[in-house]
């Protein structure tokens, strides 16, 4: 386990929103979709990268001295960071004690991750609490993921994998025996729209779900509700209709769009494409959930 490495960007303890009970969520870095509203922009690239929170910067200049690439320069009011020169060595982050420069993502061994996971182990065993592997797309690091899942099952910890499903089904075959719950994201059913909003069509995603229904222990579908993308009754009818005959789906959760990620985009020097969109209202979320419920599914609007 200490020889299997992966790249993660966060481990969240006392996580209550990614599966049942009290959980620890491990966020894998790297995703092969490019959803324009992505709530975790730091999860997209597979490699570690630098995040800058300029409001914390005290302009001490230690990062400039530390950078071997001369990628940081001072202008009259602030520091300018040339990301194209950055080799992600992290020396500027080590030098920064005001936490203005943070490394998003780090390469860790499965053992490192397990040592974090077991910290809250006593809390997992009630109400199906446990561990959720999320991201990013955890299935892109399936070897690392599988090692962690097996390690959890050895300790009888409930496991969940939060996936967008855009990988070969082989990967699901590999991990399904050690996964108690799949949190499976469905953005929309229309293939062209899916390509338009995520950069990828959903053929593989939908066919994987169909096959997964035969081997998974339990599946919870998660639908991010994005204004203008999938927030009409029609969108929900399509999703409800598609999901109605699956056997292992116990719940469909509708997750509202939020714009709390904006500052993260800024910190990573990325353009925020969902700017100006506002979060759907609670009542609207409930209306949409009731459409899906009308197909005999247990749909819940998460607030």
């Amino acid at each position, binding site marked *: 386990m200490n020889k299997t490495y992966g790249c993660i960007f966060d481990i969240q303890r*006392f996580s209550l929103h990614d599966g049942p009970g*009290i959980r620890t969520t491990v966020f894998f870095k790297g995703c092969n979709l490019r959803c324009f509203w992505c709530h975790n922009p730091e999860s997209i690239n597979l490699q570690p990268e630098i995040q800058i929170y300029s409001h914390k910067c005290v302009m001490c200049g230690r990062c400039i001295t530390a950078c071997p690439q001369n990628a940081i320069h001072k202008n009259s009011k602030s520091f300018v960071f040339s990301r194209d020169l950055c080799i992600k060595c992290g020396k500027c982050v080590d030098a920064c004690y005001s936490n203005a420069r943070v490394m998003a993502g780090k390469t860790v061994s499965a053992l490192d991750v397990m040592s974090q996971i077991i910290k809250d182990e006593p809390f997992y065993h009630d109400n199906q609490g446990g561990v959720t592997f999320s991201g990013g797309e955890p299935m892109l690091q399936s070897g690392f993921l599988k090692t962690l899942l097996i390690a959890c099952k050895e300790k009888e910890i409930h496991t969940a994998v939060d996936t967008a499903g855009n990988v070969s089904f082989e990967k699901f075959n590999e991990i399904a025996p050690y996964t108690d719950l799949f949190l499976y994201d469905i953005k929309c059913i229309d293939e062209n729209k899916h390509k338009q909003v995520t950069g990828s069509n959903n053929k593989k995603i939908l066919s994987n779900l169909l096959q997964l229904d035969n081997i998974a222990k339990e599946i919870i579908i998660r639908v991010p509700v994005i204004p203008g993308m999938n927030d009409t009754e029609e969108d929900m009818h399509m999703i409800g209709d598609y999901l109605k005959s699956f056997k292992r789906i116990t719940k469909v959760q509708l997750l509202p769009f939020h714009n709390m990620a904006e500052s993260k985009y800024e910190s990573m020097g990325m353009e925020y494409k969902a700017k100006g969109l506002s979060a759907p209202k609670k009542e609207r979320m409930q209306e949409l959930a009731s459409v899906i419920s009308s197909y005999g599914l247990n749909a819940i609007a998460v607030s």
Partner: protein
Amino acid sequence: MTNGFTYADRLDALLTAKRAQTEKKFLKFGRTLDLDDRGNLVAPDDFVFTPIPNHKSNGFFGPYACGLNYKKLLHEHPVTVDENACLLGSWMVMLIDYKKPLWNPDISYAHLHKEQKMYDIVHGIGGVQHFLADYSLGLQLGFNGIRDKIAFYEKDCDVSKKEFYQGLAACVEGIYDYITRHIAKARELAEQVADTVKADNLRMLADMSEELLKRPAKTFHEAVQWMAWFLVVGDMYNGCASAVGDIDRILKPYYDNDIKQGILTEEQAIFYICNLLIIDNAYCQIGGCDEFGNDNTNELSHIVLEAVHRMKIPASVCVRVHENIDKNFYYKAVKYLLTDRTGSPNFIGDKAMTEGFMKNGYSRKLAVSRVKCGCHWCAIPGKEYTLNDIVKINFVAVFDTAFKEMMNSGQEPSVELLWDTFIKHINKAVAVTAEGMDFQIEHMHEVFPELLMDLLCEGPIEKGLDASNGGLEYINLCVDGAGLAVVADSFAALEKRIEKNKQITWDQIDKALKNDYKGYEDIQLMMKNSDHYGNGGTIADTYAENIVKEFVAAVKKEPTPKGYNMIPGLFSWANTIPMGKAVGATPNGRLAYTPISHGANPLPGFKDSGALTACANAVASVQCGYGNTVPIQLEINPVTLKGEEGIRTMMTFISVYLNKMGGTLMNINIMDKEKILDAHKDPSKYPDLIVRVTGFCAYFALLSEDFRKLVVDRMINE
């Protein structure tokens, strides 16, 4: 019952009267309260009490002088009767507030001053009560039984003990006088009220209290009335009746008997308990188990919980959690915590409390009988002198002493040397604390004996010895440490920034601290953003664990010089502000004279996310392990834990922490961040807002600004 005189209407009226009292307190004292809301009424402006001195300092000392002055106070103190009440009893002031000076200046402990000050020790000399009376014993004896018992033992006593018995007898005379005046007041009011139902109720209450002066309580209503009387008169002495203990066990025989006879309903019982807790916000334990692990939860556990839930006033009810606790009861307790948002109940863990106390050499049977009855503490009813939650050692002051000593020693400074110096001073601080407690036990009875507690304990009347002077069977003295996180984080920051990363020198940090970081803001930021105790696995966590190990070893290595057992714990109570004011800037980036960290909690904001389980792990890892608590204080935003799922999650969280991780006590605030921020700006907008400050809950609007800020800072960093 007639219209307008239902239990619900009467409770509403009593609560309205309580709100009016809260308003009065605000008008009279402003926002200055740093204490529990105890249930006492505001004394009229023209009420003056002048004690009779027996000493040139103008103070009064010793059993007889204290007894006489108590009797005088009870004779002069105004009495009030509420026509909606189901219990008589009211109180406004305490004798101790008029005891100036509190300590007899002839009995000097100047030889301890230097070190007490150096380590900022709250030494406990002059500390009153903070142990537990035995209400079962009191109910069994009744006031007449207590009076007869004093007379019996006084008759042939040694002449040296005469004064003690005279003091006790004076107290009982005062109590008879005070109750009799309430009875007269009730009869007087009965004549005045137009409503015959109300008049009959008042006459019935007067008759009942009259009976209770002649014999012990027989019914549930009488038992609750008797408790109310003792709470009132006990608090009027030195606040000593702020605790009842395991109320559900104490009242159970009366409840069962009345139910069997068909003279009591559950609604009646709830109303009586409500009225009791309005008269005095007493610390109670409910739930728990016997020595074999059988659940103690009974109908009264539910009734007490229900009473607190209905009133939503600051309460001090604690649920004792164990593996076999009644699931419905536990569910209800957690549900009320989450939905009432008054910080009540709090939760104590039977496992760690019982097994820890047994490590002092006591049986399991005795250990389970040691019940929760104060902010953070337990005591054996009527048998144990404890000085609980009084004696505190400020770890931050000890650290400061060690740091200065090292920097001035001429030796090459290092974290290792600092650690050794710190441990040396921890041991010295414990030693001087122990001496102080011996001094208290030797002399307190000559200054301000525990006369009211003596009435309800086993031993003092029999032996003619005050509870503070060896009158009780057990003495287990509580020694708490405070400010753990500040010291742990300071050590970690020094190790990281000076020795590991070599970013600054000892000389630089020394100058930065001496200048309170003025001109050294970058160093402050650097120190502040080092490792924090609470995250788990950091050097700061290791320091915290080691500090506690050394502290426990220092407390447990030997008893006090006079041979009394000491029990370590970690709790700052509300002393975080004064203790902070005693110490300059610290290497964790803390500015001079600002508050120290709360109890054993990590510093607010120690972790960006997932702090609840991290905090639970951290505080579980620094338990002292001898049956005194190391409480965890948690601030939880209600959006985190919603609905049924939220209740289940919290049930898991609490039971895992207390049953599996070795946790002792959990104090939890469920509080809306926006609401608390708004209330801080304008407290008058939220007169009913209750927060858990620490081991106690209080009206937010009555707290001093410093205290409000403390609570707010914890919340916004949640």
